[in-house]
């Protein structure tokens, strides 16, 4: 390869590695946009290919241009910069201006390094280690998630090492290209294969709302995620591993965002403003025990919703209506007005309704007692208007749906029993969980009717909507809830559990009303368990929880547990989220793998040499093995730049000996000639000289 091509490649790879720094570093600052830093870090890298003066000129020009486009005025900026500097001198943390120039300096520094050291293993190695270090650090301690980028970074690292090698020792040999190809394919194969080594969970764990974050009206399958518009449910969707937020300090918990009340026959729309206690910051009856909980949510980017793990977060009445304070009460968001909509959705009243990237959230987690769940009283806490809304069913709902509802709950009396009956109905074996082959109702077809009687294949929206309709048909006030499941466990960070909630964890379930208990969540989707959704008060029962068949409480308790185990047996995915995280390779695992690969690469000669010693020394010297040993020696010599073709062994021996200042090659060659050209018995001394020569060549 031409030297300048190698050099450009080398620089480009180093620049690409450096660009991995931007996302985590800038993500932890108050900067909104990354783009200025891409220019600040990458342009000087390429400018380093030019002369000193051109390099400095372009870098400076680049800095000023970026500054101009980002800040608007260069002169003003220097004023701010001076202020910042004064602040830093007097002991404050640096502000944006200093940070900006610091990044520019980092860019300049790396550009000088890449330009002046080319080609250098030291630089490549330093670049790789520092990049992976930065990624690993930010991945562990901040919201930044490097799981996907780390693979690109590792592949880039390997390529950078390869190009460095190429620049250091130009050679025509194909072996190097083949080996880098092999290495790359091994890494890629590992990357794609390792999470599925023990089973296929690619699509099944996930669920939920179609077409969310993109909000496009495009055709074709939507992407999974949280979205606002639920007017037309159904149809397949694609999985999306994108991170929505990371929750710290809470156990595995479903995350509620909002509920919807009006079923149109195709989907859900929001209810008109309702005004009862239950819609003013209350989710459960005041008799229900609640446990306060505090969670730290870190969002990948600003969102338009705030998920919460239990009761509505703390609310205070103000003159301007109900105001919610998310975050520390003392150090909340003083400039933000936060309201809760009737659906339970928390909204930041600003332009774009964007939330901060980090929210400290306090709420209470209700735990229902068996008695509370078993209540069967006339609904009186809800207003008539609310009852009407929560029992609403479209006029066009086919009668067979209502008939089925009656049939399912024929043996049940209380709302809780009826809800359990509906849930059990979906687990009768006829229904199937799938995200791909899901129909979307056309024309007059009712979404629920189609699912219950025709397709029986669907994801959470199908199950939850159908459950809601069936419960409403039974006269139980019900609403449809959107949010996220508990997400993937990240393990314990700084003493607290963390969960990663991704787009594919978007989910929907239902809440039905029990007078005296409040809104009780119900997980209707098969292969999901509501263990994390419905908190049951068990402390008092656990002692006498031994199965006593005639004890109705213990019975129902036992049922719950049995059901979970059945789920595990029937469908081994169930709530496998936690297991999944532990099986996929974390960032540190990648670094260890890369480190091992690097050690293998750096020591490949020693390893190969040892293997060759052991291999050849352990077998008797015959004509064939002598020729093979000599071939291997020739291969190594060729790799070291000696010309083999057109050379006789003795010509080569002279050159090799002159190069290494020995005469071992001449001796070895004499023995080789004796064996091959005089066709005599091979002399065992050949091995001795061969070993000496291999050690010399491969050291």
């Amino acid at each position, binding site marked *: 390869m031409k030297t300048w091509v190698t050099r450009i490649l080398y620089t480009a790879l180093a620049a690409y590695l450096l660009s991995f720094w931007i996302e985590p570093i800038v993500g932890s600052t108050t900067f909104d946009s990354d783009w200025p830093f891409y220019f600040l870090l990458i342009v000087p890298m390429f400018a380093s290919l030019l002369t000193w003066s051109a390099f400095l000129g372009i870098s400076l020009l680049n800095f000023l241009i970026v500054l101009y486009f980002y800040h608007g005025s260069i002169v003003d900026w220097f004023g701010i910069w001076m202020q910042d500097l004064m602040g830093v001198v007097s002991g404050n943390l640096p502000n944006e201006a200093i940070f900006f120039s610091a990044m520019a300096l980092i860019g300049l520094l790396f550009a000088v390094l890449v330009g002046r050291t080319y080609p250098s293993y030291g630089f490549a190695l330093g670049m790789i280690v520092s990049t992976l270090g930065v990624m690993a650090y930010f991945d562990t301690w901040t919201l930044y998630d490097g799981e996907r980028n780390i693979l690109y970074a590792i592949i880039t690292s390997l390529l950078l090492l390869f190009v460095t090698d190429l620049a250091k020792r130009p050679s025509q040999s194909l072996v190097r290209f083949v080996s880098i190809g092999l290495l790359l394919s091994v890494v890629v194969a590992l990357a794609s294969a390792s999470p599925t080594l023990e089973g296929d969970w690619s699509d099944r764990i996930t669920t939920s709302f179609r077409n969310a974050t993109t909000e496009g009206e495009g055709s074709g399958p939507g992407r999974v995620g949280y979205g606002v518009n639920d007017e037309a449910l159904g149809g397949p969707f694609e999985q999306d591993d994108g991170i929505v937020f990371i929750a710290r300090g809470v156990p595995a918990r479903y995350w509620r965002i909002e509920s919807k009340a009006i079923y149109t026959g195709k989907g859900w729309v929001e209810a008109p403003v309702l005004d009862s206690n239950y819609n003013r910051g209350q989710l459960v009856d005041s008799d229900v025990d609640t446990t306060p909980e505090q969670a730290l949510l870190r969002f990948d980017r600003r969102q338009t919703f705030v998920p919460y793990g239990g009761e509505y977060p703390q609310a205070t009445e103000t003159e301007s209506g109900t105001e919610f304070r998310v975050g520390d009460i003392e150090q909340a968001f003083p400039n933000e007005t936060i309201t809760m909509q009737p659906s339970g959705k928390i909204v930041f009243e600003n332009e774009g309704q964007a939330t901060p990237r980090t929210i400290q959230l306090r709420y209470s987690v209700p735990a229902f007692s068996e008695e509370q769940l078993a209540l069967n009283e006339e609904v009186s806490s809800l207003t008539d208007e609310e009852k009407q809304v929560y029992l609403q069913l479209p006029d066009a709902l086919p009668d067979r749906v209502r008939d089925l509802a009656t049939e399912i709950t024929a043996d049940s009396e209380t709302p809780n029993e009826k809800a359990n009956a509906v849930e059990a109905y979906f687990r009768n074996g006829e229904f199937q969980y799938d995200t791909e082959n899901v129909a979307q109702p056309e024309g007059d077809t009712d979404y629920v009717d189609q699912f219950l009687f025709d397709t029986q294949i669907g994801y959470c929206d199908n199950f939850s909507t159908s459950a809601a309709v069936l419960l409403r048909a039974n006269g139980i006030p019900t609403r449809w809830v959107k949010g996220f499941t508990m997400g993937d466990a990240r393990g314990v960070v700084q003493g607290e559990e963390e969960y990663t909630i991704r787009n594919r964890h978007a989910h929907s379930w239902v809440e039905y009303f029990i007078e005296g208990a409040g809104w009780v969540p119900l997980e209707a989707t098969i292969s999901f368990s509501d263990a994390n959704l419905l908190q049951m008060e068990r402390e008092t029962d656990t002692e006498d929880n031994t199965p006593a068949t005639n004890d109705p409480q213990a019975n129902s308790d036992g049922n719950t547990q049995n059901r979970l185990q059945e789920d595990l047996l029937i469908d081994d995915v169930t709530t496998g989220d936690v297991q999944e995280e532990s099986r996929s390779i974390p960032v540190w695992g990648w670094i260890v793998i890369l480190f091992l690969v690097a050690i293998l690469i750096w020591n490949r000669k020693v390893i190969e040499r040892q293997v060759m010693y052991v291999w050849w020394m352990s077998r008797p010297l015959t*004509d064939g093995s002598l020729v093979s040993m000599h071939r291997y020696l020739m291969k190594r010599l060729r790799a070291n730049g000696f010309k083999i073709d*057109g*050379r006789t062994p003795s010509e080569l021996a002279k050159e090799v000996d002159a190069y290494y200042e020995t005469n071992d090659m001449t001796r070895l060659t004499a023995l080789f000639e004796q064996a091959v*050209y*005089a066709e005599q018995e091979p002399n065992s001394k050949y091995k001795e000289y061969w070993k000496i020569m291999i050690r010399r060549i491969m050291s």
Partner: protein
Amino acid sequence: MYRPTVQSIITAIETVIVGKEEVIAKSLTALLAGGHILLEDVPGVGKTMLVRTFSRAIDLDFKRIQFTPDMLPSDLTGISMYNQKTREFEYRPGPLMGNIILADEINRTSPKTQSALLEAMAERSVTVDGELKVLPSPFFVMATQNPIEHEGTYPLPEAQLDRFLLKIEMGYPTFNEEIALLSRFEKEEPLETLHSVITKQEVELMQREVREVHVSSAVKQYIVRLVHESRKDPHTYLGGSPRATLALMKASQAWAYIHNRDFVLPDDVKAMATSVLGHRVLLTAEARYKGKTPNQLIQDWLDTLPVPMDREVNEV
């Protein structure tokens, strides 16, 4: 590292000839391989002197033939003359009846006479008046050819060039060699004082020993590949014949022998390749216009052709 006997011959010859060790060694190679050599060079570089010294050092019967355009075959082979006394035809041997023949300026004589010489070289016998006369052994022809004169010359046809085992160029001596040459011939004639160091019988023995030198299959492959290369190369109009292959092997054997080895190395083949193939390869007109020479081509082949390093025969 020559064989001691060979070393003594070379040392002896070098007392007369200055700085022509390679030419001497190659001439000895041809003699021991039972072939003949064609010395091609401008006049005055010591071709004749070399041959005379050679015959003196080896104690062989030396004959010289100066070729002219009017020479007849019988001038070489000898004729039967009528003897008045005995009243019988008597055979008068020609100059071919010697051990070392210097055929000077072989391209000056007519093709008829040339072919008589070449036939004798190949057959090692002549027919005079219907009678077969066997030439003495060893029989070694060193023909010289002057490459610069074309007027009135008859260049040897390709088929006849093939009969010379080696073609050797003498070349001019270096500056120091020429000084040494002047000093050596200043006061005396060194050839006069040269004594033979080896007998005719010993030469015949050595010739037999050369044939015993081992040629491994790897080396045979190398030889054949090299000759095949001369046929495949787009620059050649005519490549080496199987006789060339054979010649290369014999020359390599002799070269290995004088270097005190009883087996042939690829190095021997390389050393002999130019001298053996140089006059047997004809270039295309295009290659000649490009300024290529056969020796250059042969060197190219040697530089690129992999040297076989095992016993298995792999056809390429």
